[in-house]
């Protein structure tokens, strides 16, 4: 008896293993795709935000020498000599700009110091490179300059992550807040969350009644209205954004209409400010709220509400206590979709907002396109990713429905 049951158990396990292997093979292509297209680039992004290999790649001997030096006074002659040699090699390889840019993040005079040094150093080997460097500029006699180089030498750095949190390391290595005029990112992040939150709320308030109407209308009319909701979806994003400019600008349709009706005497400022950003983002993200809500509402039979009313509930109470809880899955899906999309919005605030309305993605684009500061762009993007994941975890916790026990 016992042998038979053990045998059966073994057979069962074998069958289950085969089943799970089959399931895994079916999912394997998708997993591979996700790894290549999703996990690897994001891993690269996270790596870029701490990557500090500029000096180690362009000037490896100097970087090693600086790290071996203890940081007191001036580094040994050998390190200073290798600095000159490797800088010159970098010029002939066309990569000196990389070093200049990286050092400029530490101190904005470094690039011009490097250029000046390269221009003025003697071509023949002098007795002492240290003396030659100091002859070009007194900054090379200042230990601070060399300590700055030493700070830029390690393979990884936390300066970009600290900068996104408005912090930096001072000369002694402690983390201190940045000076007032450079502190922007924490307020930019809070602004991004704020705008995304307001847009999500507005989308919910506008989208819920619309989805309810679409779900409860007879099929023909409902489908027609659904097409009207989807039509802007199929128009180019830039066209929709630009058309908001035409509608809302000082000489635009809305202002002209209001002035024509005599309701206002001077045109209202409706665009290139927060109002314009929120209105256009709500317009663009509304279908993302309406569609999940519609699909959930379509599946809710109408007789539950009728049953509640027949049992004596006020129609509004029936709606609120019977209907709405059943739509919560759709509300949750719509909210999370709209919120996460709104967090990453770039082009709409860039075109319709003022400089004080720009969201995080604008600065990621600025660092990528205008200053080539990959570290900052990656750090800002990574921080946005982390914030989004944290909010998603909170959302999961809040909307977790207890699963019935699976056998």
């Amino acid at each position: 008896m016992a042998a038979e049951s053990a045998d059966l158990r073994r057979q069962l396990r074998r069958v289950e293993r085969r089943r799970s292997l089959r399931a895994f093979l079916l999912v394997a292509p998708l997993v591979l795709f996700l790894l290549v297209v999703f996990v690897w680039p994001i891993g690269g992004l996270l790596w870029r935000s701490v990557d500090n290999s500029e000096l180690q790649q362009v000037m490896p001997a100097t970087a090693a020498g600086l790290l071996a030096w203890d940081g007191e006074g001036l580094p040994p002659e050998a390190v200073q000599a290798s600095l000159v040699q490797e800088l010159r090699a970098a010029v002939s390889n066309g990569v000196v700009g990389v070093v200049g840019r990286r050092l400029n993040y530490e101190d904005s005079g470094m690039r011009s110091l490097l250029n000046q040094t390269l221009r003025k150093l003697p071509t023949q080997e002098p007795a002492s490179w240290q003396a030659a460097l100091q002859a070009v500029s007194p900054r090379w006699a200042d230990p601070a300059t060399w300590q700055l180089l030493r700070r830029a030498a390690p393979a990884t750095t936390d300066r970009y992550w600290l900068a996104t949190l408005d912090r930096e390391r001072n000369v002694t290595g402690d983390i201190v807040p940045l000076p007032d005029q450079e502190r922007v990112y924490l307020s930019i992040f809070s602004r991004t969350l704020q705008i995304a939150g307001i847009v999500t709320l507005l989308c919910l308030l506008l989208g819920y009644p619309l989805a309810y109407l679409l779900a409860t209308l007879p099929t023909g009319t409902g489908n027609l209205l659904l097409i009207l909701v989807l039509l802007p979806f199929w128009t180019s994003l830039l066209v929709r954004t630009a058309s908001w400019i035409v509608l809302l600008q000082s000489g635009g349709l809305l202002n002209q209409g209001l002035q024509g009706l005599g309701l206002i005497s001077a045109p209202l400022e409706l665009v290139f400010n927060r109002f314009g950003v929120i209105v256009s983002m709500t317009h663009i993200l509304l279908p993302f709220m309406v569609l999940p809500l519609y699909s959930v509402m379509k599946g809710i039979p109408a007789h539950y509400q009728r049953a509640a009313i027949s049992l004596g509930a006020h129609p509004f109470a029936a709606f609120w206590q019977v209907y709405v809880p059943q739509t919560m899955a759709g509300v949750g899906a719509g909210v999370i979709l709209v919120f996460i999309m709104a967090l990453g919005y770039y082009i709409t605030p860039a075109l319709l907002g003022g400089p004080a309305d720009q969201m995080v993605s604008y600065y990621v684009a600025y660092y990528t396109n205008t200053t080539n500061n990959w570290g900052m762009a990656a750090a800002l993007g990574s921080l946005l990713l982390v914030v989004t994941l944290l909010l998603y975890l909170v959302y999961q916790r809040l909307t977790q429905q207890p699963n019935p026990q699976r056998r």
Partner: protein
Amino acid sequence: MKLWKLRHAVLAGFAGLGLCANAQAVTVISFGGASGEAMQKAYYTPFAEKEGVAVTAGDYNGEFAKIRSMVETGNVSWDVVEVESPELVRGCTEGVFEPIDAEKIGLQDTVMESAVSDCGIGTFVWSTVMAYDSEKLAEGPQSWADFWDVDKFPGKRGLRKGAKYTLEFALMADGVAAADVYEVLGTPEGVDRAFSKLDALKANIQWWEAGAQPPQWLVAGDVVMSTAYNGRIAAAQAEGRKLAINWAGSIYDLDFWAIPKGSPNLDAALRFIQFASGAEPQAAYSSEIPYGPVNPEAITRLPEEKQQAMPTYEANLKEAIRMGTEFWVDHGEELEQRFTAWAAQ
């Protein structure tokens, strides 16, 4: 007989393919808009016809970082780029642009002295000026102090988004003489002074990034006055809009043709630059849009009323200053960073 004909046909076909493969193309990137259209008429089309080289035109807004990433990744798709002078100097020192020997391509004596540089050849002289709608403002602003005076001229102002061409005007509005602007801006107190002057106007500023925006906004009434590239305003004037330019305190500069290092069509790029610096094409370009030619012979070919609209015209040059190239090469990055942080607050 048939096989012989077939063999010859195939060989001729391959020869034809070979010829096609040799036909060069060159990608020329400019700042687009009205200037790009004028270049299409004066440079791209005539060059393509004369040399048989296909010209692919494109535009950008001066993002030096784009060129730098191209060169750093070894993926250069732009052959000739129009750059502002600080970017030219920076690109040359960093090895982002190919060195151009003006003597070798015969341009040393053809163009103005200031248009010859180690890594670039000048294209035209342009100016950032103060523009306003003369229909809405009968008595226009006379100085940068007027630009900042919101009581005298209520309404929004357009300024270029960036530290360049903004900080200088702020100092001029604060009373600094045009000739001393870059000296004052070189001191930390001068920079603070410029930013606090900008703070005073901040609520009324609408920032533009593309050259086509200021005339658009002026005509639409979004802004009551704006800084703008003089050529774009002239293009709007040609369309019949009543926009006026105030040349006092304007900043003029040259734009340069540069070749990103590693461009696959170096030869065609040099030939394009040679062509675009000739007297005939230069005169054609400047008669389309009032940017000063760099070829002195071209200037003599232009009629008087076209010359009057140029930044290089005597009366316009009187109160203008040249852009501080070395200043912006040295201090550009830190000031742009400070500007971005300031604008975000």
